[in-house]
């Protein structure tokens, strides 16, 4: 079972960067062919899904962190306030 105990970091990063490069190239190549069939015109923009993925992810985190300024409280928020009133 011990072989399970280290995770293959190097393999992961290699596969990741190969995947990244291939997806970027394929997008350019396939968009010019008749290979991809989308329903909306904006999906045909070059690298649309790459941009959507990275910016969607980052915007999500940043907006949520912004929201956090208003809605994040201490861990015992509800319990603590109850204590004040008793």
């Amino acid at each position, binding site marked *: *079972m011990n072989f399970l105990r280290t995770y293959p970091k190097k393999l992961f990063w290699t596969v*990741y960067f190969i995947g990244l490069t291939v997806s970027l190239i394929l997008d350019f190549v396939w968009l010019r062919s008749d290979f991809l069939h989308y329903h909306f015109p904006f999906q045909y923009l070059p690298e649309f899904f790459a941009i959507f*993925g990275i910016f*969607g*992810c980052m915007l999500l985190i940043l907006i*949520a*962190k912004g929201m956090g300024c208003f809605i994040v409280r201490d861990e015992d928020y509800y319990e603590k306030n109850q204590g004040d009133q008793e």
Partner: protein
Amino acid sequence: MTGWIHPGIVVFLGGFLIPFIKWRKIKVAYFLLLPVAGLTIVVLTSIGFFGTVPSWPEALHRWRIPFLQYFLVLGKIDKMSMIFAYVYLIAAFCMNIYALRVKNDWEHVAAMAYVGSALGAIFAGDFLTLFFFLETMSWAPVFLLWFRGTKKAMGAGVRYALWHHFSGACILIGIVIHLNRTGSIDLVHLPWGWGGEFLGYNLMLLGFVVNSATTPFHSWLSDTYSEATPSGSIYMTAYTTKTAIYCLIRTFSGIPLLMWMGAIQAVFALFLAVLENDGRRLCSYHIISQIGYMVAGVGIGTEMAINGAISHALCHIIYNALLYMGAGCVLVVVGTAKFNELGGLYKYMPISFWLYMVGGFSISGFPLFNGFVSKVMTIEAAELIHNAPIYLLLEGATVGTFLHTGLKLPWNMWLQGKDEPPPTIRAKLKDSAVNTPVNMLIGMGILAFLCIFMGVYPKVLYDRLPYAVEFIPFTTTRVFSIMQMFIFTFMGFWLLRKLVRGYPTYTLDTDWPFRMAGRKVIWFCEKPLMAFANFVDEKVMNLVHFLIWFSRNPALALHIKKEEAKLKMKRFVVSQETVEKHLQILGEKRRRYPGELPKLTLGASLVLILLSLSLYLILYLLIK
């Protein structure tokens, strides 16, 4: 009434025998056999042992019981209830394996009652039966919460009960109004619109919306699921919300309002998930987000969207149970599921990590996992009605889902840190690759297998959907675009990974106004209302004491009161000394009160009695 056995009733009633079985091995076997028995009935039903199941939307009616002037239908068997029953029972079997080590037998009873009533609700053919099972279903999780025993869990149980009784009341009012209008209790698709004549239907819709945790009524889910017992919460993830989705499909499909609510919810829950520190609460927000897909599918209402909503609900039961089990086994093993206290567990719990990751890939919608084959149906349905905002919201939710369940949670729990967990956590772990109890791993393993099996061979799911499916999920376009999206989502996560670390905080949710209002109500009851009650109490008691005092010797009491009144008037005209003298005399009289009571002779008493009787006679005659 004959010709069928209700699997829900078998599971529901069978569960109550568990605590009375003495021998542990028989108990374990019996507990595991309950869902298997239910599953056997369902399999027999689907192969036509109890009569051929007709094609959608026709249904086979069994267990018709006369009730007042109506018929209760406990067994409405059609393609939709059959596929739900299959998944409910398979999931229950895996959850039972996961829960085997639970010492408290009554927790098993609550869980089986829960599964049984969920099955009862999906086989219900009329609104009254449906309502009955929804109500029993809203009680079982309350016990799963209370069995945890912590103060927080107790409070969460009460809040759960409050929310679900509110929704139950809404549904009941809706049913009564519907019954009044149509005179029928059959479970049918209902009309919907704005305005007074649709009030009942809107209330019923509200009830289902609360039950299915649709935004803005989703907060009960994240609030309560994370407080239940580790194995109890697994049951909770599956049944309540999916049964509500089932009810929505049956009664209110095709409402544009639902489509928008669902799509917004799918994204909204993800914002809250970013700020979440507790692993199980994070998974709860993902239930809410995934329910968004289903609600959106119900709202779109085309055949493909309904198929998508159903298949997503069923796949969701499987992968979400797996996710909750993953977070739950960390909780069981090291006693916490909070990100700020965890990290580096990979070396000690790699198997549960990989099993969790199968769930993570499924919920994100990786190709070859079951989330993909169901999610793309709903997204495709949104594309086919050419609604770009809905499409973008749902696609955005896919990004966020992968970010959290596929990256943030495993990163924070298993991977971050220098390959070693913090010392306090390390102390609780054996130096081995297997720290998780074996039964938990088996339960997770079966679910992980199902995730992959359904993802690789979606025909097993598609063939059982109500509407005929001609849908190929694995097209180059879809697989390519989703993979590219995930590759870049990972990049975004990696760049901002410091921001998604866990901090020991609590994120407010939409239940804040309700909880604050509730607190104000309690404050109002405890402070102003109690003060008023005390005031009234005191005045009444004073009066009572006076009357008791007065009745001891009314003649002398009247005399004393008269003297007191006189003295008050005299005070202004006579000298101070006289007043004080009178006061002394009055004080003496009060001290001696009631004093010597006047004694009446027998004759005088008789006269008084006769006098009062004659007065009464006169009064009686006058009134008559």
